[in-house]
């Protein structure tokens, strides 16, 4: 069973995403802060990370760089699922390849179905499937 690390500061959205992913056969660790996400990844290496950039204390960009600084985590696929408009400076599409970002979902227009399709696509191209 593929394991997903969900970094999402909002409790309700976190529960929604977690439930929809679990219903699709994935196991999920939901963390609300960057530090908790690092700790969680340490305890249970994820097959995929879903990351919101707008997090308090340490933002998602910090998490991203910290996460990628660990050699064993460098190739774990990562999808951004964020309130931040992708073309607005932060994480413009030119940076995606360098940080190994597999895709960018702008939350206001991303349905759960879109997200699930994207997760399935990324994991299956990585050789990991949901049960």
């Amino acid at each position, binding site marked *: 069973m593929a394991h997903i690390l969900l970094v999402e500061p909002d409790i309700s*959205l976190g529960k929604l995403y977690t439930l929809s992913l679990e*219903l699709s056969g994935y196991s999920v660790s939901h963390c609300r802060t960057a530090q908790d996400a690092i700790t969680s990844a340490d305890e249970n290496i994820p097959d995929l990370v879903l990351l919101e950039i707008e997090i308090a204390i340490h933002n998602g960009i910090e998490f991203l760089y910290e996460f990628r600084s660990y050699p064993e985590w460098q190739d774990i696929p990562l999808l951004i699922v964020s*309130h931040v408009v992708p073309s607005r400076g932060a994480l413009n599409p030119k940076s995606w390849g360098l940080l190994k970002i597999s895709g960018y979902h702008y*939350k206001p*227009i991303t349905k*759960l*179905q879109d997200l699930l399709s994207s997760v399935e696509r990324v994991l299956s191209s990585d050789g990991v499937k949901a049960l």
Partner: protein
Amino acid sequence: MVQQDEQYTGVDGRLLQAVVENMKLPLLQVARQAELARMSGSTDTNFSSIELTADTALRLLDNYLLSTRLASRRGSLEFEPVSVSAVLTDIAHQLSKLADQQQCELQVNISGRYEPVIAHRAGLEAALMSLGYVFIEARSAQPVTSGKRIIRLGAHRGRSGIVAGIFTDSDSISNDMYKRAHSLYGHTRQSLPGLVAGSGAGVFVADSLLETMSTRLRVAHHQKFSGLAATLNPSKQLSLV
């Protein structure tokens, strides 16, 4: 000179933008919760309706924020050649669910083949989308005409460019009504009482977006249908073969 519109950069404007940004989250929660209920097999049709309404509201807020961002960068926006027919077709596809829910028939009518227009693509799409929401809401509350309620996304060549907009098969909007609406909005609950029950904010969001492209909405006609449209400048460099 790059214009920094006071309404967007003053204290009130910034506060409004911050509030609007905050409002997106609860709407997102509602939309995704409704979607999850639907995906989980719920037969309650209300969930589809709530999902659609919440998503529509989210888009409107997003389009408003886009209009403020574009307005603050006027003078340095990235314009590109945009195919009007492609945009209208895409918008129609995105509006189709809402139109169905509101028992309206959506049509796309482009009379002729036109060269691309110079526009900010995302802004133009957002403008037509916002306008579409209002017209669907408006038309759905009006009586049927010959058994239908038709919303037409149309384009034709005007005297000074390509005219593109949203039109309906009812006499929905007049020049006087639209002129009055501009002086009323922000001051009254209903700026377009003859058209739509709510504030009709989508019209003004669309107008703001188009203003950043040096054009405005005006009352227009398209093959006996009336509505609101903008005139866009064709690209002189490219033309469709």
